[in-house]
Each structure stands twice: as structure tokens, then as C-alpha cells.
């Protein structure tokens, strides 16, 4: 089941990347980043089945960091919404050349 799980992880990661690149709604972009993190978690768990328990520990840490990131990121989105009255990423172009 190792190869199938790795393929599934790769498919989920690619779909997440596509979502990040193509969507305009900042919340959906954020959701797609969570999808990418989850695909990586799946890869870790699949490899931990063969290579030892450390992979599962790392997934535990990744989930914690994802939770922290979601909290801070959504707070940033709220404060951007206050400023622009929208969550479209087209508005956030201060660093764009």
C-alpha cells in the first residue's frame, strides 16, 4: 500500500498547489494550503509504516503548526477584510511589481 499512498499524497498535493495558484478568495487559498499540508502528512504516515514511528511524531508536530498557522492566518484575513471590505487576493498588491 506504500506506493499507492505516496501517489495519493502526490495527487492531493498537486490539487492543493493548483488551488493556491488559481483561486482568488483568500480563505480558499488558505484551505488549499491546509490540503497541501495534509497531503504531506499522508506521505509521512505511509513512509512511517516502513521506516519507524518517527514519521507519525512528525505528523503530530505538523498538525500543531497547521493549527497555529490557521489561527494567525485567519486573524490576518479578518484584519485585511476590515481594511479592503473584501478577501480577494487581487487587493493585496503592495509588494507586487
Amino acid at each position, binding site marked *: 500500500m506504500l506506493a499507492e499512498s505516496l*501517489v495519493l499524497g502526490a495527487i492531493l498535493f498537486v490539487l492543493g498547489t493548483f488551488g493556491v495558484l488559481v483561486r482568488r478568495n483568500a480563505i480558499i487559498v488558505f484551505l488549499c494550503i*491546509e490540503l497541501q499540508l495534509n497531503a504531506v502528512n499522508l506521505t509521512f504516515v505511509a513512509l512511517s509504516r516502513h521506516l519507524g514511528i518517527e514519521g507519525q511524531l512528525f505528523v503530530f*508536530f505538523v498538525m500543531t503548526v497547521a*493549527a497555529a498557522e490557521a489561527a494567525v492566518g485567519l*486573524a490576518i484575513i479578518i*484584519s485585511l477584510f476590515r481594511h479592503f471590505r473584501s478577501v480577494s487576493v487581487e487587493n493585496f498588491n503592495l509588494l507586487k511589481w
Partner: protein
Amino acid sequence: MADVLFYVFAAMAVGGAAGVVLQRNPVGSLLFMVGTLAAVAGIFVLLEAHFLAAIQVMVYAGAIMVLFLFVIMLLNLGHDYQADMKRGFGAFLAFAATGLLAGLLARQVGGAGESPIYQYFPGPEGMDRILAEQGVIGAVAQPLFTEYVVAFELVGILLLVALVGAVALARGRG
């Protein structure tokens, strides 16, 4: 049996992920994401990571997705049905970058499972023995609270900082 279940869960996960990317309504996207997370939790169970499957359902599908839903409701984006896909050159660039990434990943996955490095590790049978000896939780907890205890404490501090930062950012100036 396990193989059939794996393919069912895999189809659910990929379908849900496609739904997340293609659904126009943010709430619909979020519900597809919950489905994907549940399917991945099922695959975790098939890979004998029962503890992580439980955490995935409780923390990810429970807490984090509800946080997203709260923000969507707070900002009143629930009936936002306009298409927000990028068009033209940006979409082409996204397709190209994604295709490149997919090709690279496919090349990497191609040789998985045959590398000679695998003989130095326990393998599925060894992992089954460890899980039978220490239990599903014990096998994760034992290294977590001994070898990796510093990382564990640092993650606690990270969560505290994220909490304070989120409150400070979302509260605004008022």
C-alpha cells in the same frame, strides 16, 4: 478488503480535493475539505496510525475547519457565488507550474519501495511488532516524551504565541 477500502477512501479524498478547488461557494469548499480530511483519516487507519486518525478527525476536521467556518460566517462570505478562478495568463502559468510539479512527483514516486535503504528499517512486520508491544498510543507517546520532549515543549510555546498573535491581530485598534 483493506485494498478495496483504500481505493474507496482514495477516491473520496481526490474527489473532495477537486471539490475544494472547483466549488464556487466558500462554505461548499469547506464541506468538501471536511470530506477529504475524513477520507485521509480513514487511510491513516488502514496504515495503522490510529492515534493520528483520531487527532485528524478531532483537531483538523473538528476544530480547524470550524474556525474557517466561523471566519466565513463572521465576514458574511457564505453567499458569495461569483466565479473567482483566475483567467488568461495567470491560469496558464498555474497549469504549467502544477504540471511541472506533478511530473516531478511522479518521477520520485516511481522508484518508491525498491530502494536498498529499506533493509535498514523495521518494515511493516517490525512496525506491527512495535505496535503490539507498546500499544497504539504508547508507541507514539514513548518517543514523544523522551527523545523529542524539547520539540514538544517548543510546540506548546508556539501555540501560545499563535494564540496571543491571533487575538492581537483580530481585535483591531478599537
